[in-house]
């Protein structure tokens, strides 16, 4: 499980960096909206990059609940565990 978490975190960081076009330091409790200034469309598009990367689909209601980096990685981990 630690491995999965690590991989997911790394992928989130990578996706964020490529969208924001700058290096980012990731903390689990960072707020995706407030700390990275993403609007709702940007978040959906950001999630789509992660969906592609992990071959999962994150339903919109789950996406709406995501606030922190940790929420996001847990959502993806849960989907991976299910799939």
């Amino acid at each position, binding site marked *: 499980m630690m491995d999965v978490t690590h991989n997911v975190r790394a992928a989130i960081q990578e996706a964020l960096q490529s969208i924001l076009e700058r290096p980012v330091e990731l903390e689990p409790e960072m707020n995706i909206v407030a700390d990275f200034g993403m*609007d*709702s*469309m*940007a978040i*959906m*598009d950001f999630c*789509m*990059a992660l969906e*592609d990367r992990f*071959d*999962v*689909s*994150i*339903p*919109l*209601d789950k996406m709406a609940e995501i606030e922190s980096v940790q929420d996001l990685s847990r959502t993806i981990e849960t989907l991976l565990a299910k*799939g």
Partner: protein
Amino acid sequence: MSLLSKFEPLRAAHSRLTKRGHDPFSVVFEEMVSSTEGIMQGRRTVLLGTNNYLGLTFDEACIEQSVEATRRHGTGTTGSRVANGSYDGHKRLEADLAAFYGRKHAMVFSTGYQANLGMLSTLVGKNDHLIIDADSHASIYDGSRLGHAPVVRFHHNDPEDLAKRLRRIEKESGDKLVVVEGIYSMLGDSAPLKEIAAVKREYGAYLIVDEAHSMGVLGERGRGLAEAAGVEADVDFIIGTFSKSLGSVGGFCVSDMEGFEILRLACRPYMFTASLPPAVIASTRQALATLQGESGLRAQLRSNADQLYSGLARLGFKLGPEASPIVSVILSDADKAVAFWNGLLERGLYLNLALPPATPNSSAFLRSSVSARHTPEQIDFAVRLMGELGRQLGLLEAMPTEVGFAARGKVPRAAAVSDG
């Protein structure tokens, strides 16, 4: 702190925008002169952003029918069809729509927005799945949220990604409903419907096509993209609006599905709102007849759209991927887009300004929609004005060249459309 303080960021963004000129979201026309011209602050203004594809808002026959219906049946129905009953006109319009599409059933809603809210929230339940194109209209997103099914987006116009998403839920129980649009309202591109229909068949999903911008525009008979792509049999539900090519207001869904009529007692955005007034029903019926009778309008619309698209491409503007009645100029600098839009309006040309976050990739669009009733002179005026002002603002590099025209073939997809 007040109840509305959460809107401070929006208020700030809006006031920054309006400081630089007119408010693009609150333009007022004192008068409409015709379907293609209005008066704004005393000035005659060419309307190139009103979705009035066939220009039927001032059609004599539509106006006559509308006035006559008001005299005979009154100004409003004062309630929903479930509570107050239907008027004969509602039933007749539904029969007309069903006949036009060659389907068994039709249901009329008070707006196209409500048609999407109603159908998307009612057709699928919590054990089903809704799969929508990522660039869907707000009414599709809102309809998705109103219902209880999990909602997943697929990459815009990407049948392979749709297949991937359906594969991921292949083993799950419940029905799968896919939603796409005939012509996408921001860039004027169409869904690759043949391919999407094939995916839908492969995975046993249902398919809705929202033909809001393609009804009366695409297809030999004007039924929309499903007709043009030759896949009407694969489309389980067609949703549409009266507010664009039919020049009034209202929405609808047509289908051949057995048992369809029960939706009238299950679909809340149909049941709990007032039905359309007689004037609207009457003009819409006439407009639908005109749409079917005058295929010349569609040919004129296509020719006008080509004139605008090729004129702007020749100037070197970056446009949406294909010529359609929606022609969008894509600009990377939102500030310049605002200045451009203001400058055009001050010189008598109205079109729509679309800014992030409503647009993909933080780009800004100047969105125009062409009408069959635009004269070649009006379109020429628009192209020349956009060229002049575009050069003044540094949006266009130099004088128009043949190189700019040759580049037209390359403008397409990758450059124009959000790919996530």
